[in-house]
């Protein structure tokens, strides 16, 4: 069992007897209680897409599939290429990568997920560190972390960070929620 907030694109869950691959997972901070997760699914048997909105503490039966540790090598255009420690290459179609491309960098360690022997998707580390390449100047005096602003990281992805974060800072991001978690010294 996993709660919705622990699920990421690449995970497979069972719903109503169907095996559903999560192809996109979005996190939004709701009111006082649990946040909201928006999932896009692909039925692994029929291939049909669907979506669902859940509270982040909703429990799901996750399916344990074969995993292999790999590192990201390059993007050939239509496919993303990964390599294991024995130099075997694995190709994941770009269409299957979904949110993962927001954080990918060369030699990034991640895991390939296999279904019936075929590479299905990739799973990212829960926490990744990226350099901020652009953000508006810090607000003087604000160190509370309450005021947020947009920041762009080296992959081109933009997320909310506290107002004190500056260009060149390295920040840790939770890939499950796309949230800034800390500034890395």
């Amino acid at each position, binding site marked *: 069992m996993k709660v919705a907030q622990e699920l990421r694109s690449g995970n497979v*869950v*069972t*719903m*109503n007897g169907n095996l559903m691959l999560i192809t996109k997972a*979005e996190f*939004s*901070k*709701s*009111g*006082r*209680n*649990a946040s*909201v997760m*928006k999932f896009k699914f692909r039925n692994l048997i029929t291939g049909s897409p669907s*979506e*669902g*909105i*859940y*509270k982040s503490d*909703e*429990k*799901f*039966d996750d399916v344990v599939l074969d995993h292999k540790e790999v590192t990201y090598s390059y993007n050939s255009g239509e496919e993303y290429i990964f390599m294991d420690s024995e130099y075997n290459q694995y190709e994941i179609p770009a269409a299957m990568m979904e949110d993962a491309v927001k954080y990918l960098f060369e030699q990034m360690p991640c895991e390939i997920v296999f279904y019936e022997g075929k590479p299905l998707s990739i799973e990212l580390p829960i926490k990744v560190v990226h350099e901020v390449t652009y953000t508006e100047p810090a607000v003087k*005096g*604000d160190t*509370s*972390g*309450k*005021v*947020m602003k947009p920041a762009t990281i080296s992959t081109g992805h933009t997320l*909310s960070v*506290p107002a004190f974060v500056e260009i060149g800072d390295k920040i840790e991001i939770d890939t499950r929620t796309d*949230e800034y978690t800390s500034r890395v010294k």
Partner: protein
Amino acid sequence: MERYSLDIFCRIIDNYGDIGVCWRFARQLAAEHPVDVRLIVDVFSVFKKIEPALDERQALQTLEGVTLLQWTEEHLAQHYGDPGDVVIEAFACRLPDLVIERMKRRAVPPVWIDFEYLSAEDWVESCHAIPSFHPETGLQKTLFFPGFTPRTGGLIRERNIIAERSNFCADPATQNIWRAAKGIPLKEEGVLDISLFCYPDAPLDALAEDLESGSEPVRLLIPHGVAAEKVQHWTAAKKEQVSFCSIPFLKHADYDRLLWSCDINFVRGEDSWVRAIWAGKPFIWQAYPQDKGASFLKMEAFLHLYTQDLFPPAAEILAKFHAMWNLGSHEGRPDPRLWHDLSAYLPVLKDHARQWSDRQARQDDCATALIRFIRAQRERIDTEIKGTI
């Protein structure tokens, strides 16, 4: 038109917000739509504060057309019976196992709704009213989001509220008769009345000092129990420009009248925020305090929407005032001229508040949107059932 039975489950967490929204919504649904409403609430003692007619000793009773049931294992086992055609879980309060088991056994599954918090953030539109398979039960459950745009569930608004407000505001004598009956000081020429409803972490001392530096007398009307220690302290301090009046904690209809009869309203959370919008008077909103800057993001999202066609200098000072009020005491001393600057724009803010209120009132209200959604879901369920026969 088909009549539905509808259950609303509400857990009271820490304040009056959850029950405030649920009680108002339950009453409106029962009064204006073909639904038989049951409201299942856990803490009757808090509920009684906003609805004095509630009898705390009765686990099952009917008020204003709504069946009220106290949410305890014992009372549910004894009185709950079958789930309604519609089961609403207010603010993801988690339904009891007994209810979920009975929902699963129903020949026609209920329309299961998680009624969510109000937010002006962009993501709400894309998450609103999308039926989703519930992973643990196989039933369908839908997150329903109130909101400010037509692609959300709208705001809770009773059918006659705008007309009632207009009549009340048009007649100062009526306002004073009502005030006298409720133990609230009568209106005074040249004195600005401000109602104050806030969370304990609001920068109240800074506000009191700031108001003192203004150019006209201000009277703060504070419901009993809100910022009680501060009010005692301020009353003893005898400010020149600012006077403090502790007023009774009011039930819903009276709280509306308080908002209608004040010049500015400080509101918090969700229920009083929406009522301040329908009051059509300038207001300052304090979002429910959350970590990681979430409440600040919600405040910014709302102000972005609210100030879109407001005179830019007025929008700027309104945003500054909201930032001061929502950032609380963490940010040190706020700008002492904030009140001075804000009050200069009061006529502009007053016009804007009325226009914004009128514009929102032209959209479907939340109960209407909910009933429309329920009808569509019931038709879908009926079609699915017919398809399997």
